[in-house]
């Protein structure tokens, strides 16, 4: 099982990514997905995502491999968009496939929790009034990621 990892400006297609994981096989019993979208909070005009090319892919590959070691997975897909995204736009997709639902659901939650704290992406909010500000990291995200190591 080789995780599919992509960093791209283009949108992703959930149906296409699902088909890519399931096509031609009948051993998958559960497919879990998470899509993170750009919320239009506080007069947001656009979200601009920057990343560290090279390290990003490397960091995501490592955590995907960790997920594959912790749960019996048949497929992992992580797609993270970068660049300028309007409110409502999908930002990130995590998709996991397993024989059973618990492995798919838990690994999907693990991957998105970890992506929030362990992959080199930075978000900048462009506001309707022309101002711009960097999104600050949240303690809640660190706590969410930490619960997977406490277990």
């Amino acid at each position, binding site marked *: 099982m080789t995780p599919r990892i992509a960093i791209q400006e283009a949108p992703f297609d959930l149906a296409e990514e699902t088909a890519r994981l399931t096509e031609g096989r009948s051993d998958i019993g559960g497919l879990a997905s998470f899509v993170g979208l750009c919320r239009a909070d506080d007069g947001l005009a656009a979200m601009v995502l920057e990343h560290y090319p090279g390290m990003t892919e490397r960091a995501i590959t490592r955590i995907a491999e960790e997920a594959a070691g912790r749960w019996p997975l048949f497929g992992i897909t992580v797609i993270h968009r970068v660049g300028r995204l309007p409110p409502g736009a999908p930002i990130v997709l995590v998709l996991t496939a397993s024989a059973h639902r618990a492995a798919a659901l838990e690994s999907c939650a693990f991957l998105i929790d970890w*992506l929030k704290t*362990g992959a080199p992406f930075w978000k900048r909010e462009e506001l309707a009034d022309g101002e711009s500000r960097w999104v600050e*990291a949240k303690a809640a995200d660190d706590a969410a990621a930490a619960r997977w190591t406490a277990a």
Partner: protein
Amino acid sequence: MRVLYFAWVKQHVGVAEEEVAPPPEVRDVAGLIDWLAGRSPGHAAAFANRKTIRAAVNQDFAGPDHPVTAGDEIAFFPPVTGG
């Protein structure tokens, strides 16, 4: 030694990356930050609050004690906010 900057660290420093040749007494991430902070007012502003700075050495997260040597790729950035 190649140094990369991201997000507001990059905005303060004013460049996305630079080649630097610190003196031999710069042996770790913390030492490199001290030395870089003296290079310009922009660098000083970028590194003013060390607690908000994260680092990577050769594309792995690295703490202040992590060694740095000529030929390394070292990056400085704020805590990550992806996902």
